[in-house]
């Protein structure tokens, strides 16, 4: 299966609401620290103006999902 290069940050938050209920996020420097069940991942947003319009590399979202152990739920929601 092939995937898009980027996903929008809003899509990532929606998917985390479903796959990682109760997750937390903290914006630091050029990334968001996403924490779920005592596991954290720094999701890179890159330098930009409007944080909430940031586009995220799909591969970074996939890596995050592996770290948080939610890949079976998250990837089908964001894939094409």
């Amino acid at each position, binding site marked *: 299966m092939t995937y898009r290069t980027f996903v929008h940050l809003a899509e990532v938050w929606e998917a985390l609401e479903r796959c990682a209920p109760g997750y937390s996020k903290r914006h630091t420097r050029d990334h968001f620290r996403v924490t779920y069940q005592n596991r*954290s991942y720094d999701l890179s947003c890159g330098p930009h103006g409007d944080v909430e319009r940031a586009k995220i590399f799909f*591969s*970074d979202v996939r*890596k995050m999902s592996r770290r948080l152990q939610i890949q079976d739920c998250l990837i089908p929601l964001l894939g094409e």
Partner: protein
Amino acid sequence: MSSEWPLYFTHRESIEGKGYLAQVNMQGRVLVARENRSDSDLPAWVFYGVQPSSLSAEAESVPAAFALFRERLKDILFSIADDARDFDEFHAAVSAFFAETDSDTDVWVRRAAEVRAGQTVQEMAVSRLPRRVAHEVEPTCSVVNVSAESYRPSPENNVASQIFQTTAA
């Protein structure tokens, strides 16, 4: 034919913290994948961290992806320095970050076993990388307080940023 390859990397970074200057030397592992994208004619090269595991980077070539991977690593070390109260806390947090694993570790181990059993690497972008036997590149992470009075700078401490492929035993 595999489209993901088990590689090693070396990298050194200088990080300023709260009252200290630290040198972080990593000899780690990455799973490098060539992936197609639905919105691009060119394949993407992705570095998935294995040790450390909590980062990834993507670009249109192996060297470009490795450069972005090092930038991501630097950003994460900056963030750890922002939060750490002192050098000891920074050292502990970096060591913990390096030790974290995920499912990519299992894939890396399987692919490395295939290579060591003699499977040839067909992808030129990977096969032309320098080779190291496993014991030469055992994963390590050292964090040194170079602002301490006891530290003695030496050119022997310089480390080039490189990626290596594993080789048959």
